[in-house]
């Protein structure tokens, strides 16, 4: 029997359940109906059992059937099983079928997802952490500008996490609409303030009217001054600081770029006054 499942949390969990019941079944995955149809036409398969393509599933129940009710997180911020799968699926190098087989191979031991004991376990734990890290870095270093009453920012990530970031930014600023532009999609949060759904996506061309300020404004200047005021020169630790404010951060916003430059080069105490007075 061939089982086709959707590459989302529902689909993966339903496929796990099916694989436990029918260990000999073959798996096929697709991101949506169109991709599934394309794959079926390409391979000439006609009869498949589809999972996760219609409606939503009670994932909590399936997770408790698969792994029991025991919660296991190695780090405080590690997500639960559903969150783990959702993160892994966003990773550019994740393979949904391999993930399903790994989840089933854990045989109910939820710790194996997080412990990294096996090679495959380590691979998917790292995928999860990779996506999680990219998301947190975006939350750290992206700097939205308030333009035309909308808090807007352009982001880039290999892991399709613009929607996650948009939700986070909308939660942080519940009183203004937020727009996160990722490639040709614009995610809109708190859309109810501008007559849209609370959370939705629109083509980025529609959000094109938003002006992105590349020039420094008063807030940037204030930030530079504040940033410089917080440094304890005697404690400069370039290696450590470079790890925490990585090179990657510089590409996420102008402010983060200037901060990264100061991490690299230090903060000069000299001004023009030093030259003229001397």
């Amino acid at each position: 029997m061939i089982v086709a499942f959707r590459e989302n949390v529902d689909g993966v969990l339903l496929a796990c359940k099916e694989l436990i019941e029918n260990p000999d079944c073959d798996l096929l995955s697709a991101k949506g109906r169109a991709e599934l149809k394309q794959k079926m036409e390409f391979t000439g398969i006609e009869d498949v059992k589809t999972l996760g393509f219609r409606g939503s599933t009670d994932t909590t129940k399936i997770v408790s059937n698969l792994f029991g009710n025991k919660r296991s997180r190695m780090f405080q911020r590690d997500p639960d099983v559903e969150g783990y799968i959702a993160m892994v699926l966003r990773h550019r190098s994740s393979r949904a079928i391999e993930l399903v087989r790994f989840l089933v191979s854990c045989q109910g031991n939820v710790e194996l997802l997080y412990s990294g004991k096996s090679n495959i376990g380590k691979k998917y734990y790292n995928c999860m952490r990779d996506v999680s890290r990219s998301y947190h870095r975006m939350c750290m270093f992206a700097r939205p500008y308030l333009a035309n009453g909308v808090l807007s920012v352009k982001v880039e990530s290999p892991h399709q996490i613009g929607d996650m970031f948009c939700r986070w930014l909308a939660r942080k600023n519940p009183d203004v609409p937020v727009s996160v532009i990722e490639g040709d999609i614009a995610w809109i949060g708190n859309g109810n303030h501008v007559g849209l759904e609370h959370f939705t996506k629109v083509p980025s061309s529609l959000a094109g009217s938003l002006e992105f300020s590349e020039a420094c404004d008063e807030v940037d200047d204030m930030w530079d001054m504040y940033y410089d005021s917080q440094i304890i020169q005697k404690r400069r630790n370039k290696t450590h600081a470079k790890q925490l404010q990585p090179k990657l951060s510089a590409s996420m916003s102008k402010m983060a770029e200037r901060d990264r430059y100061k991490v690299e080069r230090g903060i000069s105490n000299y001004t023009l006054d030093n030259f003229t007075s001397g």
Partner: protein
Amino acid sequence: MTLMERMRVLSEGTKYDSCNQSAVCHAFGPDGRCIQLYKTLMTNACCGECTYCPNRCGRDSVKATLSPEEIVKITWSFYRRNAVEGLFLSSGVIGDAEKTAEQQLEVARLLRTQGFAGYIHIRVMPGTPKYLLEEISDCANKFGVNAETTSSINYSEICPNFHYNSDVLQRLKWTRDLINRKRREAGKRGRIIGANDTQFVVGAVQESDREIIGTVEKFMDRYELRRPYFMSFDPVPFTPLENNDPSPLWREIRLYQTSYLLKDYGMTANDLDNVLDDNGFLPDNDPKMLLASCNPELFPVDVNSATREDLLRVPGIGPVGANRIVSSRPINSEKELSRMGVVLSRARPFVEINGKRQTNLFSFAGVGA
């Protein structure tokens, strides 16, 4: 002075304050410390006479003040730009503790009434009245008072305007009770309420590390202190302590390490007694490694049968690594340990996997096990 100049002066006054609140860091300085909050003093024109403080009354320095409205405006600007998660507000004493707390409360209230959803951490002055602490707890996510040192005798030496027992310890007790009440009221989905915290100035008076560690343990027990902060004393010109020696930075680091051993590793101040020298000071070495070296009879521990507590005594294994080991047994190789985040270079001499352990000179000489 322009707004920017006043802002710079007052932000510099808080650069030694740590404001870790386990949320999103938005930048890291060249010293590797994170920036999560907009940290500022309301004023540095302080009427206190703390002997180590650059803002002490009578010291000739540039004095500046920010109005509550200005602090609110700056906080919003940084917050909207996603440059901070909120505000850390401290101050010099404006007249008395009550008046200062009223001003701090005004800032927090203004922000909340304007719909500010960010984090507010208020460092209150010793002697702040209870009714104001209660009102601050309605708006702020975290609030606390600095203990600065370990005893009332030491305290009277460096902070002559305040009393250790009534102005500090009593406030720590009140903040503990308020935090517990607010946490109960907020429930799981409500506003975050940070744990009780305090800060010690290390090296301003001649207190030993034994005293500091003992005080931290006592505070954890009595006032549910979650995390102590340490600030190395650095003599400030034109203060009574200007001729004292600065406290070395490594002392602050070793004290932080021991505080983690108390907080996360289930150790007690008595356990740490072995690593202190005759005068009660920590040497410049990792206290956990020293502790393991002082107790060779406890090692090696078998990773497949040791309890979590035993694993936590092994250098290179932290709480996360210990959890992973306990839940992933059997462990068959060092590689598996390494994958679980154990620092093998430190842990190797102290662990045993399936009867195999690292050899040592004693084994070659045929001495010991």
